[in-house]
């Protein structure tokens, strides 16, 4: 295959992928706002060794009021990062505790939190 044809093919492919990526990204953003959250089994009593402000940061930094949902799901800017943020926050703490040999909540198994 000549270099010109190679470059043409590559350009065509790149343009197609760019358009496709943009379409998928736009669709994903729309879906992110609309999809319902999976139910989470969270018990305060299991977390009473942690300071309240670790989770309820809005008590100390005045970033909002009410339950997590009020800000994280209803603020458009926070929605795209919500899943990553919550997973890293909960799982990060569990993984750290387990890595140090302590007892912790679920590490990765979805069904142990979302049931």
């Amino acid at each position, binding site marked *: 295959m000549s270099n010109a044809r190679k470059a043409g093919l590559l350009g065509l492919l790149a343009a197609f992928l760019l358009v496709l990526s943009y379409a998928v990204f736009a669709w994903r953003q729309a879906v*992110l706002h609309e999809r319902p959250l999976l139910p989470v089994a969270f018990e305060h009593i299991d977390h009473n060794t942690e300071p309240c402000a670790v989770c309820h940061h809005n008590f100390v930094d005045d970033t909002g009021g009410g339950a997590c949902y009020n800000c994280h799901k209803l603020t458009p800017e926070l929605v795209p990062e919500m899943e990553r943020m919550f997973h890293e926050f909960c799982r990060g703490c569990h993984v750290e505790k387990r890595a140090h040999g302590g007892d912790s909540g679920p590490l990765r198994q979805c069904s142990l939190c979302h049931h």
Partner: protein
Amino acid sequence: MEKLPCRRRRLALRFFAGLSACLALPILLIMQMPTAPAVGVVWDLANLLGYLALACCLLLFVYAGRPRHFPPFSGRFFANLHRDLGYIALLLLTAHVGLLLVSEPLLLEHLKPAAPMYMLAGLVASVILLILVVSSIPHWRRRIWPDYHHFRFLHALLAVACVALACWHTLESHFYLNTGIKAWIGALVTLTVFAFYLRGRYFPQRSAQRQSRIRDTALYSRRIVLGSLVMLFIAAIIVAVVRVPV
């Protein structure tokens, strides 16, 4: 079955040892401290198989179908080795996805459009690997790309995209590559393999003369790859079982 001549058998065994060592690298890397806490036998096994699938994909760039200096076997051996490693990568990937979905059906949520980007990257990488394998079967390849050069060009392009997406998936999931140093080692290995491939493609080394290559070695590739796979599969099961605290 034909008995292997001594030299040929020795070379095949040395190559088998080297290949297994390369494939075992992810497991060795994973086992280095600080290790991620164990989740469960099935979960850990599935993820180890995923790492092995990625290692196979990386090896496909090293053994890209062209004859190499070592082992000095005929060209057909390397073509078959590339094909067999591709099949094995797809098999390991299927086991990775299948085991995780069976043990955690809720993971299906991570295959939907609203899933995190690194999971979607893994999904797209899987689809690309499937396309790469199916479109390389000679019957389909001749139908889709009558011109072999078109096939080779797009095959290489898709393979790079597949590995790049798989690396993103692996690094972002923070499962075993959970520290900066491990992530850097993983990235360095991937970049080295890409550089190795590009060097072989654009600055080919003078390979051994065709006459001096050992012939009738096409069948060895399957034995070597299957042998490595069985050994590593057993190693992955042992590692997954040992990691889980009693």
